[in-house]
């Protein structure tokens, strides 16, 4: 009789005692699985394969990864004064919902600081193929628009694409020529450019540079202060945070 009375608390205590190790085993399994698949994935050739991972990590540890940023040049897409003392170099993925949000933040930055020539916005590509397979072609579409009618066409196309995309790889590729038509560039030339893959290498180079600077997700931006010091901005940070960085930078002028 006594045995049956004591049996219940024994089982209860055993379950309670097992809950913690069980949780640890599950978490360990999850993390081990993630590491396993992560390493497996990174061993497949990707556009970033030219930059060894260990080297990247070492560089990031030293805080030098940001210095790998390709210098801003005339072939970059710049909004605002190209000689502005402050430059914000954004590496973006057109299908990332947070990039869409940060695009609006950056437009607000340029509205406030662009006209006075204090801040320049540099746009580069960082399509995350594994999450948004359509983003790479869209990045090429941006370049094709720019190739046809210069910097203005590039930015008009970019603004329109971010405006209409539902994000997360849900933009119908048929919309790409429609955007070209909407901004008033030659659709036939645009389609030829897009299908030829003329800018595939350009996009791949941008992506590689983003990774080399320490970018791990999008939007990834590098704030270049007037004295050349670089600060990383990870994700869609609020306008107030970007403004604060700018104000701090302008004080040193």
């Amino acid at each position, binding site marked *: 009789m006594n045995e049956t009375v004591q049996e219940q608390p024994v089982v209860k205590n055993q379950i309670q005692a097992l809950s913690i190790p069980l949780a640890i085993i599950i978490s360990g399994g*999850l993390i081990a699985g993630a590491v396993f698949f992560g390493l497996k994935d990174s061993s497949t050739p*990707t556009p*970033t394969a030219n930059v060894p991972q260990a080297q990247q990590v070492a560089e990031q540890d030293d805080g030098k990864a940001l210095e790998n940023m390709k210098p801003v040049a005339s072939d970059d897409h710049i909004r605002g004064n190209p000689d502005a003392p402050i430059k914000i170099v954004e590496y973006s993925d057109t299908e990332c919902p947070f990039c869409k949000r940060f695009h609006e933040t950056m437009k607000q930055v340029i509205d406030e600081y662009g006209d006075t020539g204090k801040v320049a916005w540099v746009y580069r590509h960082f399509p995350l193929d*594994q999450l948004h397979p359509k983003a790479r072609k869209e990045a090429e579409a941006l370049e094709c628009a720019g190739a046809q009618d210069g910097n203005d066409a590039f930015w008009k196309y970019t603004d329109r694409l971010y405006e209409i995309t539902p994000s997360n790889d849900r933009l119908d590729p048929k919309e790409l020529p429609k955007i070209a038509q909407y901004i008033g560039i030659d659709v036939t030339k645009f389609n030829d450019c897009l299908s030829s893959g003329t800018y595939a290498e350009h996009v791949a180079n941008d992506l590689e540079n983003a990774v080399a600077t320490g970018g791990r*997700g*999008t939007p990834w931006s590098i704030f270049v202060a007037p004295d050349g010091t670089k600060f990383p901005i990870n994700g869609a940070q609020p306008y*107030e*945070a970007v403004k604060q960085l700018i104000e701090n930078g302008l004080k040193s002028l």
Partner: protein
Amino acid sequence: MTFIRRNIGYITLALIVSAFVLATAILLPNGALLSLVWTSESMTVLGKFLLTTSLLGSLTTNFSPLSALTTVSISFLVGVNVVLMFFLYRRQKRSMTRGSVATTSLGALFGMFSVGCAACGSLILTSFLGVVGGAGILTFLPLRGQEIGIFGVLILGYTTFLLVRTITKPLTCDTL
């Protein structure tokens, strides 16, 4: 009202711990920026402080609604768990809280791993997995890694339940 007045110390402690965990979770993705800013000589202390507080606004811009919800929930539950453990320790002064400490830490760890932009691969978790290759694992998950945050909430909810049950249990000498 009397309950609040009687337990004002515990409530304050819970709020402080929750706020600390929430702030850490929000600022974690920009740890590199903050370390550069706070070691920079060209910025005033006020400027550094204002930048740090402005980054807290990223809870509304850099999180999906689900990840914001799990992050806030985890922060709140960690605060509650810490206070319950503290109460239990003061009342019983024995090592029975050891298991709860481990489980709470585990729940908080899951919460921290789920911080960031799951849809874009800037989760803290991906930092440990390598760059774009690491984000690949998340594509296999229906919620793109936000499952980890939900798991964290469940663990912390369970720990809270265990602690409350222990506290409300009459003080007896258990044979087992």
